[in-house]
């Protein structure tokens, strides 16, 4: 990992400490030796109030590559997460997390977390990442909403 990556990650932690949205959490994970791994974080994203998602807090893992902040972190929900833009493995398809699209080195952890919270309730039907949720979302809203509500319960706080 470059010095730039390390220094920037420390700064992200500082910024998050000073200012993060209500109901969210984010912290580096522990390594086996008891120290903290700044390149791998865990976070929780609350569903937006007034949406089908609001009951849940959805767990994220955020992995920062050595080339961060030139390259974006890899952000994942749990494997099998039901959402049109989430791959079966949990990898999230979101343009700000894509080096080829809208990733910019200045994007902060807070912006990423808020971006994902937005995505939960406003899927992008044009970049499907899994078939079941995408199909239900485009063809069978009732079934889709039922599944979302169920999932929210599963991740309720």
């Amino acid at each position: 990992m470059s010095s730039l990556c390390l220094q920037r990650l420390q700064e992200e932690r500082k910024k998050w400490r000073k200012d993060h949205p209500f109901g969210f959490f984010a912290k580096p994970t522990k390594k086996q030796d008891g120290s903290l791994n700044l390149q791998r974080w865990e976070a929780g994203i609350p569903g937006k109030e007034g949406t089908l998602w609001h009951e849940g807090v959805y767990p994220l893992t955020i992995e920062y590559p050595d080339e961060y902040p030139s390259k974006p972190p890899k952000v994942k929900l749990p494997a099998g997460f039901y959402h049109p833009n989430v791959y079966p493995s949990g990898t999230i398809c979101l343009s700000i997390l894509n080096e080829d699209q809208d990733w910019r080195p200045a994007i902060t952890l807070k912006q990423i977390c808020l971006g994902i919270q937005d995505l939960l309730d406003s899927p992008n039907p044009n970049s499907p990442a899994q078939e079941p949720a995408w199909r239900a979302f485009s063809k069978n809203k009732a079934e889709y909403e039922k599944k979302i509500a169920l999932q929210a319960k599963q991740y309720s706080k």
Partner: protein
Amino acid sequence: MARQSNIVRIVGNDSYEKLRSTKCLLVGAGGIGSELLKDLILMEFGEIHIVDLDTIDLSNLNRQFLFRQRDIKQPKSTTAVKAVQHFNNSKLVPYQGNIMDSTQFPLHWFGQFDVIFNALDNLAARRYVNKMSQFLSTPLLESGTAGFDGYIQPIIPGKTECFDCTKKETPKTFPVCTIRSTPSQPIHCIVWAKNFLFNQLFNAETNPNLNEEDEEENKDWGTTDLDEINRIRQETNELQELQNIVVSQQENRIHEIIEKLFVHDINKLLLIENLWKTRTEPTPLDITNIQNVSDEPSKKLNLSEIWTINDQVQQLVHVTKKLMKRMPKEQNHIEFDKDDQDTLEFVATTANIRSHIFNIPIKSVFDIKQIAGNIIPAIATTNAIVAGLSSLISLRVLNLLKYAPIKSPTDLNMAFTAKASNLSTNRYLSNPKLAPSSCNCPVCSKVVRGVVSVSSTKYASLTLQNLVDLIKDKYEYTDEISVLDTKNQRLLADFDFDDLLNKTLNDINLTDGTVIMFTDEDEDENGLCHKPLELYLDITETLPTGLDIRLPELEIPLVKAITSEEATAEEEEELSVEKNLTEENIIVLDEEEPSTKKRKIELEDEQAAKKTKSEVEDVIELD
């Protein structure tokens, strides 16, 4: 000696005497290193220490001219020293080892040298030596080549740009979506074939259920529980089934593998209509291509030509059979290797069939070998030129050329091939003056650096809290500081994490040679805090009596607490320039050491425009 009189004639008697008492370190005895060693000996440096980790490989021999066939598998450093003895007039000291091993090469060992020459092939070691040179303020001559391109950069710590002042571009990676569902270039299909498919089939340790730590492409098939999504389960099982066919060597079922990958999976993708609104739909492989496969071994195919789809399928079946037969002999684990013809042809044919399906141009096996093997040929001539420049400029760095004296370090020049920088087509080398260190550099500008020396008895009982207290006291920190082990990249303590504070340094494996960074967590009312402090941990018996720990005497200035916004805004601007220039020649992928990196420099000369230039290791050879 004729040679001696030449060097004396160039530098004069006084400088020659200085040269004879100069001690230099040469890191790397490979492509550039072999050339440099010869040059430094001809210049009659007093003492040359040579470090290289590697042993000699057959593919080195075409350009690493100090080595012969009989030297294969011998250490490069010692062999190089033996090879030059007959024309040597310097004291030569070879070491086989990793330059980043602080036990074998602690900071004070680096401290004995007047100048360091880098002739390295990877980014991590370059960064490490750069940092050591910054710790010691020892001049460093950095160099690299890639094919016909190359550069040298003298680094005068504290005065001129360091290795990390300019951004190093790393190879491009591809989003999962592109690799899995919507490839649009040959490289996407090659990544799919090499990194995903090949592993799934020929590495029985790749359990599709448990591959979280695997490469990106694999991850997307990983699923743990949540059986509500049957499709994923099914997909996972299907993959396991394909691997079973390979492991149990059911040759008669190879066609099932091909059908699954190139017909069924494509049909499934087609069901997701939205993917194809703005893209051309893929066309599943025509089943007759599979039915047409004969049992006859395929005719002799030319590796530099583009084969028909029928030939691709035929050859795929043939080579899959061969790989299946190898499985039991190789513990059901075959790795892709560009020089292993079976694995290469498997990857080439599957990538090409996938390309065909997605209306992407097909490539020859030879082309795919270059792309999949990430190869840029190493050119002996480039290495020789770069080594020559590096040794020549060292005379100016050491200020031994009386007719070209250095008044300021920024009088020195760097050099790089003009072609690599897109600077000029009619000039081979550009040699702008060195730039002063960048104020945004995380290595040379944004930290204060020093050595903390601890006696071994003190070390045995010193806790992290003790050390933190000593530092707070000495450098007048008001409140919390965070502690980071930058060598092993782990956070040891901060405002929200104090588990380790009461452990001894030894308990938490902060050993001799570790580099520890202390960061001020508090900012004053003006948004200022102490500049980060980086200390090299030196466990030593040489402290004066009565002293068991010594912190360096340093002024730690106050700086703005959060700075990344402006820095990154600037960076983005640079990035966009860079992208325009290099989009075409970026090669991928997943190798640990990127084989091509681009680095940016700012030119001070007439153009003053932002250009790129290519740096690089002296890469693996085309054999």
